[in-house]
């Protein structure tokens, strides 16, 4: 079969899964929706492997295939068709997305068992995977935007999954609206490019870029900057990031899948896909790199002080995506995409492990209340440490090879890029600190009551479940995080999913070892064959020097965390007091929420109230309508009769009058 046939089937499987679960939600027996959903994604994963093999069956120069089913929006010069593009990049993304999704579906079968919305959950989750696969396989801008918006919709639906919690619905609408800002950026960026290329097709656009755009031509830079707005909104980069921490209101497997492993990395994919445009618009590419760099630093610093365990991981996700955005913006495509994959492994693992801890805490997520779970949750602890080491970049874990690949590339490009590289190393140090702060606080130290109970085999359950954010009593009709409180130690599907990811987090790096195999780079090279940046790779020696520096920094970060939170407890409190202004800035997340509230939300609502109370009531209601009515009223007694109920006479009278006017006009002029 042609690779594109597999491509269509990859998209089709989760679509069928969604429809099947959604249409038969009332008749499905227990848990079967979960297994249907998992099977659909497993089928997609199998088909992705088949597509990979089909692609490898062709010579590297001929690994780009397109296929069209029908015209979607093609008229008056616009040529948007329902078409997919199957090339190494899209197959690579499909493999990562479907593979990780499969494991998270498996985890969810247990995690959501007792939830009232079990079937709804799996139809949404399958819909998400469908959308994400559509996004990565889309063959033109319009279809890409469709996939882009669909993942945003799925993200919204799953963030507000427990929809009686106002925190969840608030977070949902925030995420959705910021994502629509991104969609608008993508559409407008497409317009700027379409204006010159007269096509929305990827292959044709990329073929035309060098002919129709001069280097850094204004329209191209504008278009690429707008594409960056889309990428930044979806990938939670500063300043469009504020939705991601709030999105942690969704079920934990959703955080693992959508808000860590797959959807939020769509911005990275976008820039990599659009590399012929960005390489011609270097100004925009530089903006992307600087934005990614700022995000990785800002998010890492906030991660140091957050107490909600899921939010620490969320800020960590932002920070890691900052690395990827920086990488693909400067031309380190294979390194950035490699980090995308390893990050998907270890970050999904960390979220799953966090889900297990939260289960043991009966829904509480604050690190302040956790401690000493090492003995009570040995498996979870092991997974958390593996994920944490991979995230910190300790050899030989996967994150070490991928992140330092990026930083070595930056140093190699030289000039101002070295500053970005140094910032990346600072971020790596902070990563080690915040990751192990989390691990030490949750798992070491004196066991808390919940941990002690669990050591005696009893899983803690709250008497009256309350929303930890608001203190509101939870709604048991629709559900809330819980009520099952599953821990990985006791549930096989969770254990399997986490074990697979733990193994991948350790050994996933072997796919690309500098000087040994460089597998990812070689596989992706046909997609980036037209790139001149991708060819300027650092030497193997430079790569290994970078890896050595990265390893030392990771060890340093972990050592600092050990010193502050284990060896000398109380250091954290002293630091907080000594650096009070810094702490205030960080605990308020650099005041981005307040800034957006001040600049966007309040003015919009004020304008809305002004429109309603002044414009509508006074201008339209009194002046325009009142004025018109007054004139007519003065001229015609019929209006008064209309108001007393003789409407039909009034209407008839008006028609007669009009006819008279018409006849007069006709007669007098002809």
């Amino acid at each position: 079969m042609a690779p594109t046939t597999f491509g269509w089937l990859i998209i089709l499987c989760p679509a069928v899964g969604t429809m099947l679960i959604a249409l038969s939600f009332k008749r499905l027996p227990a848990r079967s929706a979960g297994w249907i959903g998992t099977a659909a994604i497993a089928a997609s994963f199998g088909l992705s492997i088949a597509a990979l093999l089909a692609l490898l069956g062709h010579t590297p120069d001929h690994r780009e295939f397109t296929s069209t089913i029908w015209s979607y929006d093609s008229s008056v010069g616009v040529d948007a068709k329902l078409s997919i593009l199957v090339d190494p990049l899209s197959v690579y993304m499909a493999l990562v997305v479907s593979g990780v999704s499969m494991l998270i579906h498996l985890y969810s079968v247990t995690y959501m068992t007792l939830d009232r919305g079990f079937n709804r959950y799996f139809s949404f989750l399958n819909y998400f995977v469908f959308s994400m696969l559509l996004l990565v396989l889309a063959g033109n801008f319009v279809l890409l935007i469709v996939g882009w918006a669909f993942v945003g919709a799925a993200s919204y639906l799953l963030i507000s999954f427990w929809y009686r919690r106002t925190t969840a619905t608030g977070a949902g609408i925030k995420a959705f609206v910021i994502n629509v800002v991104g969609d608008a950026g993508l559409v407008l960026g497409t317009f700027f490019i379409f204006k010159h290329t007269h096509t929305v097709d990827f292959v044709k656009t990329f073929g035309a870029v060098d002919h129709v755009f001069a280097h850094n031509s204004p329209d191209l830079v504008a278009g690429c900057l707008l594409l960056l707005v889309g990428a930044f909104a979806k990938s939670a980069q500063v300043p469009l990031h504020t939705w991601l921490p709030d999105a942690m209101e969704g079920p934990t497997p959703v955080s693992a899948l959508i808000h860590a492993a797959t959807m939020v990395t769509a911005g990275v994919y976008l820039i990599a896909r659009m590399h012929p445009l960005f390489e011609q618009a270097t100004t925009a590419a530089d903006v992307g790199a600087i934005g990614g760099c700022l995000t990785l630093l800002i998010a890492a610093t906030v991660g140091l002080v957050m107490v909600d365990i899921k939010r620490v991981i969320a800020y960590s996700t932002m920070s890691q995506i900052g690395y990827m955005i920086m990488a693909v913006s400067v031309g380190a495509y294979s390194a950035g995409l490699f980090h995308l994959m390893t990050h998907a492994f270890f970050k999904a693992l960390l979220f799953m492990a966090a889900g297990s801890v939260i289960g043991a805490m009966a829904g509480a997520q604050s690190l302040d209340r956790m401690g000493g779970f090492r003995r009570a949750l040995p498996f979870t602890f092991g997974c958390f440490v593996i994920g944490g080491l991979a995230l910190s970049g300790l050899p030989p874990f996967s994150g070490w090879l991928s992140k330092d690949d990026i930083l070595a590339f930056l140093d190699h490009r030289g000039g101002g890029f070295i500053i970005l590289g140094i910032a990346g190393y600072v971020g790596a140090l902070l990563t080690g600190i915040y990751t192990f702060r989390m691990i030490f606080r949750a798992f070491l130290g004196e066991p808390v009551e919940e941990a002690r109970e669990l050591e005696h085999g009893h899983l803690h359950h709250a008497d009256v479940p309350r929303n930890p954010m608001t203190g509101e009593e939870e709604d048991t009709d629709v559900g809330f995080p819980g009520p099952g409180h599953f821990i990985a130690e006791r549930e096989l599907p969770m254990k399997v999913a986490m074990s697979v990811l733990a193994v991948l987090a350790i050994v996933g790096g072997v796919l690309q070892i500098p000087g040994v195999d460089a597998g990812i780079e070689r596989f992706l090279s046909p997609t980036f064959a037209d790139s001149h940046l991708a060819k300027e790779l650092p030497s193997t020696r430079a790569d290994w020097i970078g890896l050595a520096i990265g390893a030392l920094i990771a060890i340093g970060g972990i050592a600092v965390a050990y010193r502050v939170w284990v060896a000398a407890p109380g250091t954290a409190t002293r630091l907080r007091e000594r650096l009070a202004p810094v702490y205030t800035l960080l605990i308020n997340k650099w005041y981005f929420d307040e800034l957006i509230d001040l600049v966007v939300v309040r003015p919009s609502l004020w304008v809305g109230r002004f429109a309603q109370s002044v414009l509508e009531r006074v201008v339209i209601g009194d002046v325009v309508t009142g004025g018109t009515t007054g004139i007519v009223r003065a001229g015609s007694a019929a209006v008064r009769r209309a108001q007393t109920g003789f409407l039909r006479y009034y209407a008839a009278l008006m028609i007669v009058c009009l006819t008279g006017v018409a006849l007069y006009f006709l007669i007098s002029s002809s």
Partner: protein
Amino acid sequence: MTLSILIWLPLAISLVAALLAPRALVGRFVAIGSLVTLGIAISFLVRFKLGHAGLQFVTDKVWISALGIHYKLGLDGLNVALVVLTALLFSASLVWSAFREWERARVFYFFFGLAESAVLGAFCAQDLALFVAFFDLMLIPFYFMVGMWGTGERVRATTKLVIYTLVGSFFMLAAAIATGVLASSQHGTPITFVLSSLRALPLSRDSQEWIFLCFAVAFLVKMPLVPFHGWLADGYKAMPIPVVAVFSGVVAKVAAYGFLRIVLPLFPYASVHFQTLMLLIALVSIFWATAVAFTTSDARMVVAYSSIAQLGFITLGIFSLRPEGGQGALLQMLNHGLVTAAAFFIVAVLAGRAGGSEDLRDMGGIAFRAPVLASLFVIVAFAWLAMPGSPNFIGEFMILLGTFQSKLAIAVIAFAGVIAASYYALRMYITSMHNRAGREVASREIVVPDFAVIAPIVVVILVFAFYPQFGLRRSEATLKTTVAPAQVLAARGPGARAAIGAGGTAYARVGGGGGP
């Protein structure tokens, strides 16, 4: 089968029903009849030949020979889909009505049938005088339906509606007559109102300008756009739900359609001259209406004001004077008709579960035990906010692309309206379906009769989502010739336009080029 049968059938059915059917069965009789009308409309759609710019299924009879008025009907790319939309939404509204009790039911259904005939007539009319006649005829049943079956402040609502629309109608009548009369006097030909003939007789610059303004006032009042929307809040609030669904769904579209059918081809010079003005009115409408939809707590008003904003987008597309914008505008008329009608029906369903209140503050948490209703609503909400993947997105995409190509700054500003739409649509969904349950809320699943009305509309939306090309393909050929005269003029720039001067003949080569 001729278009006359399609147009007059609804009126005939409602007359027969009013006179012969037993009182209790009038509604069902008319509803079933409307499905027959829908079937006939679809048969025209099926037989419609693609790729032809000219009129098809033409009926042309001299009506008033002394005045050159013809009874001329025809379908082309501009109206073929709108005719089917009209039949579909009237069927939906009549089915909805048939499941409810109405006082003086015979009269009610008679007016409904009259309204459908008039709207279909206005869409099919190919003679300016006939269009005006149908346009005014269309409004009369609505005055009565608001006045007699309305709720709340219905007298005030009716007064405003009558005054506004009659003032608008007066402007249009004067403009229509002037068009025919001036065209014949400026070219020395016998008087005619047939649109295709008028296209060959372009008016002088000055005449075009004032006639354009008259038509614009009439259409802008009818849509409505800011600042001509004073009647909308009371009018939409007072109308019974099935009435407001067709009123917002199709009647408002007649005005937008009028710009494409009459104004752009007949007054291309004025269209270019007032292009910026019209685009600004559209832009102001988008923001004004969005701002109100942002803050109002009345569910019905959210839909009503959002429809002003949507019509603002449609106007933006039309006056981009580009084929992309025109295509987008036509597609968006269909999409908006479907979505707004579904949204009004859903408001009624929601109110039925919130103790009869349409206030969003009394709603909340309805999704519980109503997963089907929640699913239908979420699909409608996503289409409403023009999420990519919905047919509305393709409409907005084309509209904004057209605007982008002609006036970049306006397109960029209009994007803020797109973003804001996502907030008000989702806010309405969340405050009604999600969060904690309101005090009076009884969470119940949607009942079968309501489902039978809303679900088919949602299915049509979903089909369009996969294949928006369906609408675009049918309108492409006609739309290109409609926009061409104004597009050519706009592309020549202001200097060239001034040089064309007042001479009708010099201008005729450009303006009359595209007519069939």
